[in-house]
């Protein structure tokens, strides 16, 4: 066998291109005669449009087209697709391409302008005459479910679009008889993914051949293609959606469809000229999907030793103004909440609630950070109340290595049973504690205290559901040059698929990884697929790549056997050649085999199943595979100003077999940075009227190098038994538990009981002042119940 690439820190094949300014991001596509689009967006959270006159704008020099809802063909006037229905989602309201007389969030598209360049298009927006009748907005999540609340959608009679309960065991009985029950009200607020590349679309229409080519920053090009073909009444083959290089995704770049993804192709067809729209950062803040707002009323029942008897949460999930993506985030939060623990009785109930804020759809973590925050807060509360070490409480409740597969009794987001496939949670946990130095922590903390320094250590454990179906596919081709090409439709937003997939192919075919070229995210290169989300690309597409490469290998052996007059079983592949085992001078280059597999004359044996060294294969997992992990963090708090410095951050992670540790570590390091943002720096603030107050990077703070520590990463490898490669997903591992771990660290440092995320310098300072004031009167009033709002 040749070099084995699987498991090696192979340098990324895409880097030289990206480092020299030769990437092809959507805004880099600049076809001749290109026009540019801009959108007029609602300045109100809830209003009726009483007048809309675009005549002056349309008459301006350089303006090619102005569209309002009334100008759209009937198919585009309908609400955009209901992506993921659910039996409990009674009111599946979805967004419009352009608002039909009423707006439901700040930033909702009202009119669409196409002009010679973006400058002229934005001038024209200012010439549009629009009058609104503002209505009282639904902003506060708890107020939204009150009977007297104004309604986001008048025809519903309520703002609650779904209510869903899952129950395991008999939680009522368990709570009624448990020796200890502790309750918490836990709140997470909104944040945004904020990929540095905003969204964008370029559409190129070829009227003669009726072919539409769309460059889109989407994470799901195939589904955009499928939907647009229906909407625009074109054969799927005539619509090609390309997402070549995408400048970060993190979830919100998957939506079928954002209004602009419909309007730009429509305008290109209408005008017969290419049209581009590139979102600006302000639009990205207000009109790209957001996440994280939930309020949980959670409780835990335990015995005297801290063993969990039951857990229950009832929570409100903020859906925003429409709910195209269905209940995914809320279902993930409610089911992944159970984490690594044996919970014999469990109940989760949520209400998904419309508010006059931007649409919510998955953002890195997608409900898991919420679930982890709730569960880990409850665990630490148990430790605190019963006076048992917080690590020990976790140990007593872990699912044990011999208990897999472990059925939680719940139904996951893919409508399959939530069954953990494999893992060794105690091993992950103990390794993390050892790396962070948990055993001698009290002494180190005390020593720092004598120097007047306030340190805290936080821990948090999570289980991440990854690699869900339905399927992905791949086609592998060896060309007559001997170079290998593999195409899969999953998109890439920085995860290194050009390299990790090439490693899989190179191993199967015995070629140099440099000779394997991967194409992703182009419906013209591979026509079937789902998309890049839920930490699934390496698992689902990776296994499809492996299956296709193995099929090509089998065919290469078959064809070469004929050429070498040997049996396929006696052949092996290495160094780009096929050898007779033990007789290396009897060999043929893979290039020659590829040529022989596609003869100009003669016959093709039926067992070749067609010409060429080529095969397409699909992988459809039976259900998700589950990656556990533990983070530990050491922070120092400056009590004077409410600042927090993270001194150390440890992650021990188990994603089964590791394809490329370089890429994996990068995913974790970057995920932790995003998690720190979720915990302490990033918060979208809507005021009482539904105005988004955070619309620039001066108001909404992304962590910089000053805030992000070097993450210390440890690995445990428990292969997944569910797929041929034994891999599990890792994309969200860095992010999920960080708010929970941060809260744990602050509690340890300060004696607080953190119940909300994100915090901030100013919020922490408020809490410290409250703490001081309450300690003046009562020794331990800091452990007062519930939300710590002053």
């Amino acid at each position, binding site marked *: 066998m040749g070099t084995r690439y699987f498991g090696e820190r192979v*340098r*990324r094949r*895409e*880097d*030289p*291109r*990206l*480092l*020299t*300014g*030769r*990437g092809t*991001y959507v*805004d880099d596509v*600049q076809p001749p005669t290109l026009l540019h689009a801009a959108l007029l967006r609602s300045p109100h959270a809830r209003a009726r449009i009483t007048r809309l006159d675009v005549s002056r704008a349309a008459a*301006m*020099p350089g303006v090619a087209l102005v569209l309002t809802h009334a100008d759209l063909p009937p198919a585009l006037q309908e609400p955009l697709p209901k992506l993921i229905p659910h039996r409990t989602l009674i009111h599946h309201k979805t967004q419009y391409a352009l608002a039909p007389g009423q707006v439901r969030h700040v930033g909702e598209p009202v009119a669409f302008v196409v002009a010679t*360049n*973006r*400058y002229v298009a934005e*001038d024209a927006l*200012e*010439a549009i005459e629009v009058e609104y009748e503002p209505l009282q907005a639904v902003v506060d999540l708890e107020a939204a479910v009150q009977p007297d609340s104004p309604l986001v959608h008048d025809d519903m009679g309520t703002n609650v679009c779904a209510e869903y309960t899952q129950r395991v065991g008999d939680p009522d009985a368990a709570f009624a008889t448990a020796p200890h029950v502790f309750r918490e009200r836990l709140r997470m607020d909104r944040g945004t*993914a*904020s*990929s*540095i*590349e*905003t969204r964008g679309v370029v559409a190129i229409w070829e009227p003669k051949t009726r072919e539409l080519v769309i460059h889109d920053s989407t994470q799901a090009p195939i589904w955009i293609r499928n939907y647009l073909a229906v909407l625009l009444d074109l054969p799927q083959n005539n619509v090609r959606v390309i997402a070549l*290089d995408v*400048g*970060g*995704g993190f979830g919100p770049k998957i939506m079928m469809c954002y209004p602009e993804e419909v309007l730009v192709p429509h305008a290109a067809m209408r005008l017969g000229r290419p049209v581009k729209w590139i979102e*600006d*950062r302000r639009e990205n803040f207000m009109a790209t999907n957001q996440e994280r707002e939930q309020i949980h009323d959670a409780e835990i029942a335990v015995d005297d030793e801290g063993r969990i008897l039951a857990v229950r949460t009832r929570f409100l999930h903020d859906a925003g103004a429409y709910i195209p993506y269905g209940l995914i985030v809320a279902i993930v939060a409610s089911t992944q909440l159970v984490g690594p623990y044996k919970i014999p009785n469990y109940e989760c109930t949520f209400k998904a609630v419309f508010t006059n804020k931007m649409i919510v759809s998955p953002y890195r973590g997608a409900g898991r950070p919420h679930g982890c925050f709730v569960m880990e807060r409850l665990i630490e509360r148990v430790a605190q109340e019963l006076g048992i070490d917080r690590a020990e409480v976790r140990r007593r409740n872990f699912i044990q290595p011999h208990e897999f597969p472990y059925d939680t009794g719940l139904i996951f987001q893919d409508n399959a049973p939530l069954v953990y496939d494999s893992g060794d949670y105690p091993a992950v946990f103990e390794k993390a504690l050892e790396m962070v130095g948990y055993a001698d922590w009290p002494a180190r903390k005390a020593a720092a205290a004598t120097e007047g320094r306030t340190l805290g250590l936080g821990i948090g454990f999570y289980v991440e559901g990854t690699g869900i179906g339905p399927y992905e596919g791949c086609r592998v081709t060896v060309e007559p040059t001997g170079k290998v090409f593999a195409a899969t439709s999953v998109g890439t937003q*920085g*995860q*290194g698929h050009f390299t990790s997939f090439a490693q899989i192919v190179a191993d199967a075919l015995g070629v140099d990884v440099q000779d394997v070229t991967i194409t992703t995210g182009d419906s013209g290169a591979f026509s079937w697929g789902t998309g890049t989300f839920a930490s699934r690309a390496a698992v689902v597409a990776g296994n499809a790549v492996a299956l296709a490469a193995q099929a090509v290998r089998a065919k290469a052996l078959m064809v070469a056997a004929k050429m070498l007059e040997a049996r396929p079983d006696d052949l092996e592949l290495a160094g780009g050649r096929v050898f007779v085992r033990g007789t290396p001078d009897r060999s043929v280059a893979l290039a020659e085999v590829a040529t022989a597999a596609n003869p100009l004359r003669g016959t093709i044996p039926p067992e070749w199943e067609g010409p060429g060294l080529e095969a397409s294969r699909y992988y459809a997992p039976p259900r998700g595979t589950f990656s556990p992990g533990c983070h530990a963090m050491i922070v120092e708090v400056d009590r004077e100003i409410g600042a927090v410095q993270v001194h150390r951050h440890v992650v021990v992670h188990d994603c089964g077999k590791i394809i490329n540790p*370089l*890429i994996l*570590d*990068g995913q974790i*390091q*970057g*995920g*932790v*940075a*995003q998690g720190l943002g979720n915990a302490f720096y990033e918060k979208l603030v809507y005021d009482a009227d539904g105005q988004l107050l955070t619309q*620039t*990077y*001066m108001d909404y703070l*992304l962590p*910089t*190098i*000053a805030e*992000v520590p*070097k*993450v*210390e990463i440890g690995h445990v490898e428990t292969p997944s038994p569910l797929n041929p490669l034994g891999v599990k997903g890792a994309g969200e591992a*860095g992010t999920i538990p960080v708010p929970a771990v941060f809260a744990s660290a602050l509690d340890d440092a300060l004696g607080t009981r953190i119940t909300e995320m994100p915090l901030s310098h100013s919020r922490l300072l408020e809490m410290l002042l409250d703490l001081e004031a309450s300690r003046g009167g009562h020794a331990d009033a800091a452990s007062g119940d519930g939300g710590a709002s002053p």
Partner: protein
Amino acid sequence: MSIPKPVTTAEVRMRVNGVEVVRTIEVRRTLADFLREDLSLTGTHLGCEHGVCGACTVLLDGQPVRSCLLFAVQAGGHEVTTVEALGTPDALSPLQQAFVEHHGLQCGFCTPGILMSAHALLRDHAHPTDEQIREVLGGHLCRCTGYQGIFDAVRAAAGLSPRHPNR
């Protein structure tokens, strides 16, 4: 409200990556749009267009500037250097090669701006301190990497010995 007046145009002349360019452009055109759209130098990226993220950083007479905050006419008579001048895929600069070795990029969108700032730092300081490197990188937002690979890459390009693996 009145219909915007006809825009004013001007001839602008500058050296970009060593080549003299002359164009007649709208005076309100940003340097970033001029580079990307008029000169097809799309390696310079726009992340925020309000001067925070740093993705659009180019060198103006050798100094890092935000090309989203400059009008193209302001660069008239000056020398502009973009990421396209640092190296090619087959002949990466030592700094670019260090980014490959240390996994200093994921999606690659913010990377060109970071390269330009780091390039200027290393040109002016053959032996930068860690603090100097952090200060320069502190002017850039990256959403993928968590910065450590970038930091290691710049240190390596400066010839500094690797950090302790966990620090």
